[in-house]
């Protein structure tokens, strides 16, 4: 029962299998906690790391993403009742992005489900879910196990990511389509005295760009990192931290728990829960597949129409509208909502934000006013800045879907 003997009061945060490599390359010593691990916030420069994602290829350690193995004769029935999407459409080799809710139709979390084989799935989540999954598994013959530490994960994202993997000897990777996964091999490298390394690769990611996620055994993590850094040495490949990734994910219009919504499992105040319909994820909710947790409440909400909606904003000026309150008019008399995530987009050259607004201001083209505070050498100024509701994603290059991807 009691396996861990290290004194975690001295080191509360774990190290991922990539940690030693990351630490060696971290120039700023800028680490942040993520799901019980210490991970890199910035290696050298947020801007340079960001452009690795949009210009070349980036390596991002996503080992802390929480992973569960879901297996057994009732695995599909269990998942289909739990998730809002139709899991019956998920066949071996496929990945689905989905959300799950409580009985009130409030969002618990979002994540990806990998179908590994009939009756065998992997669920990757932003936050820990064993407690929720276990309660949801009553009556199903299903095995639930957290495998976060057993699987190292590395995101390889950017327009040259396919080329990079091919150069590292991952044969056939160019045929992998979006939301597919498969077993591959990092070819042996006699020069580096390295045997072939088995890896699972999925064409998934959090950047909205061409990209892959590599899943491997922890003991192979450093070999995979070294191989990719070596072949990428002359091709502008960089390891990136969470700050750079956050810019890319806002451009891609992806939501983040604790930033754009709080899981209904964690809310203390009533009314701070969010439904998938409010978050613009209605496309993930399949009312025709039969019963699932939260269906009745979501049907009712759909009939009534959500009271507020998460939208994309194009904000005038260049100052990101972090945490800004939004108003319907410049006078600031009536509140329209608030910004949940904001960034200047170096690729779009636009000032972007995700915001939760009243349904009445949510139509594309609607105008709201953002209350932005400017710090001019410690002199604070308040600006009402015009913002327009625009389509999400803000940035969606066709290369993200191209199969085979461009070979550079």
């Amino acid at each position, binding site marked *: *029962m*009691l*396996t*861990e003997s290290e*004194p*975690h*009061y*001295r080191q*509360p*945060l*774990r190290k991922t299998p990539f940690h030693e490599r990351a630490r060696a390359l971290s120039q700023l010593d800028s680490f942040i*906690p993520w799901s*019980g691990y210490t991970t890199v916030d910035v290696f050298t420069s947020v801007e340079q790391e960001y452009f690795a994602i949009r210009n070349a290829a980036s390596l991002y350690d996503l080992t802390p993403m929480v992973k569960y193995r879901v297996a057994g004769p009732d695995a599909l029935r269990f998942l289909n009742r739990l998730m809002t999407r139709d899991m019956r459409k998920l066949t071996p080799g496929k990945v689905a992005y989905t959300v799950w809710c409580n009985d*009130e139709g409030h969002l618990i979390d979002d994540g990806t489900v990998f179908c590994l084989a009939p009756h065998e799935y992997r669920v990757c989540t932003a936050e*820990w*879910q*064993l*407690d929720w999954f*276990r309660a949801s598994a009553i009556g199903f013959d299903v095995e639930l196990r*957290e495998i976060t530490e057993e699987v190292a994960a590395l995101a390889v994202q950017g327009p040259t990511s396919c080329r990079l993997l091919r150069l590292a000897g991952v044969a056939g990777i160019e045929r992998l389509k979006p939301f597919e996964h498969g077993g591959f091999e990092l070819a042996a490298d006699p020069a580096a005295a390295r045997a072939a390394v088995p890896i699972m690769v999925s064409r998934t990611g959090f950047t909205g760009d061409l990209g892959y996620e590599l899943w491997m055994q922890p003991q192979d993590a450093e070999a995979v990192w070294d191989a990719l850094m070596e072949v990428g040495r002359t091709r502008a490949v960089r390891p990136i931290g969470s700050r750079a990734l956050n810019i890319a994910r806002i451009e891609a219009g992806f939501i983040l728990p604790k930033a754009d919504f709080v899981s209904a*499992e*964690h809310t*203390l105040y*009533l009314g701070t829960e969010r439904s998938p319909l409010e978050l613009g994820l209605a496309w993930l909710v399949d009312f025709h597949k039969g019963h699932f947790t939260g269906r009745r409440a979501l049907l009712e909400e759909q009939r009534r129409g959500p009271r507020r909606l998460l939208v994309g904003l194009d904000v005038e000026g260049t100052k990101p509208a972090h945490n800004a309150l939004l108003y319907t008019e410049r006078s600031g008399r009536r509140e329209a909502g608030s910004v949940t995530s904001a960034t200047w987009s170096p690729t779009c050259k636009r000032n972007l934000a995700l915001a939760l607004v009243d349904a009445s201001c949510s139509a594309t083209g609607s105008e709201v006013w953002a209350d932005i505070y400017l710090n001019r050498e410690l002199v604070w100024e308040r600006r009402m800045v015009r913002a327009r509701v625009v389509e999400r994603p803000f940035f969606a290059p066709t290369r993200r879907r191209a199969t085979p991807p461009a070979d550079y």
Partner: protein
Amino acid sequence: MGSKQHDAIVVGAGHNGLVAACYLARAGLKVLVLERNAYVGGAAVSRSLYEGFTYSNCSYVCSLLRTEIIRGLELPRHGLQIIPYEGGCTMMRTGEHLAIYDNHDAMRRELARHSRHDAEAYDRYVRDMLRHCRFIKPLLLREPPDPTSFKPRDIRELLFLGRHFGKLGEARMYDTLRFFTMSCADMLDEYFESEIVKAHLAGSSIIGTALGPRSPGSAYVLLHHYMGSIDGAVGAWGFARGGMGAVTQALAASLTASGGTIRASAPVAQILVRHGRATGVVLDSGEEISAPVVVSNLDVRRTFLETVAPEHLPGEFLEQVRRFKIRGSSGKLNIALDGLPQFPAIPQGSPSTRGDMHITDTLEMVERAYDDWKEGRWSRAPYVDMLIPTQIDPTMTPDGKHYMSVFVQYCPYQLAEGEWTPARRQAFGDTVIDAIARHSPNFKDLILHAEIRTPRDIENEVGLTEGNIFQGELTFDQLLFNRPIPGYAQYRAPLKGMYMCGSSTHPGGGVMGAPGANAANAILRDLGRLQ
């Protein structure tokens, strides 16, 4: 001392008596506090019973004392400092342990060591406790409404309560209602699978309470210990620098600064009543002191059964007072140590010893400890809440020496085998010391002095009936508008000019100060000094 000088007399200088006195003095009343003992503080005292050592003789940690009171009465200016402690632990009979850390990631890993599921369930548990606290907190510094009254104020307060309850949302309303009546064990079973996790958390459900973890109502007692906070951290507990007497010393200083007077060694024999009105008190010495307002900080039993002549009180009221549940179930050891005891179960350097340490590792063990109490003997394997504040507080002992506070549950007020005697008290103390020594090989050798207190001693020295630390059980039948007596929950006695301000009144025990503050409010309203 002349007789017409005082606007109000407070009987008993416990923390609630002093809080009430402070607010009355600040409102401009001439207040006199009368204390039976030679020192103030009631059950929040720091005394030196062994050369160079200061003990927190009764209450020993602080969390519930309302921030509004600390600020409002300027207690920090009068010397009060509360320092949160770092962790805690339960040492197991197997030599293993469960540590409690304030760092969330370390805590998670520690819980996952015992059960990965429980590590996650703990977050849900904390969330639900915080949700319940959010419901209860606004009710603490309010006079509970009388649901049978049609006075505008009662109706207004009932509406507040109803609206407040309604704001919880349907699902949480059900949860809150269930919570008030559940047993702690049933409640913890809904979250956790690991025995050790449940055993550690259950401690707060039985402290000061003549209930076991499987008794209905014990879940609320746990919450009662969760609703305090330190600097915004809800549920956090800490040490008062200099021991718990620092709380009442600061209150006494605040009172004096506001013009109030305290007389120690002035035991009150009777509250004087003339024409259905309290008119003052008479001391044991025979001295009479009059005042138009008399406030009793004594528990409701002692107040009405021993301090007011029965002919002045309604018969049924007295009968209800007699039935008020105020059972003694706790003992206390205060130990002077020649050095820091070793606890082999705890890794070197762990902050776990700088918080509350327990040695009951299953719910079953705690329940068995309660069984002993029911049979009229002290627990053979007791629950102890053991702290060594001198690891943090440098003011209580000489350098290198330590003070250990050991709260013991359960210890009966009345032994089945006969009256408490010095020999039986010593045997009780030995049982506790032996239980601790099983987890600390050098503990016994370090003991320089031990103060052993049975419920009988607590009653004799502090004045709490049966030695009940809460001035009455914190069960749902004795909470809110039923505390202490239905119809008399608004701090007013059935006599004009007489009030209650002790922990027998809403919202109950713990060094919270809320009963004292609410009582002062009621008095000032009656005097027309509040709108």
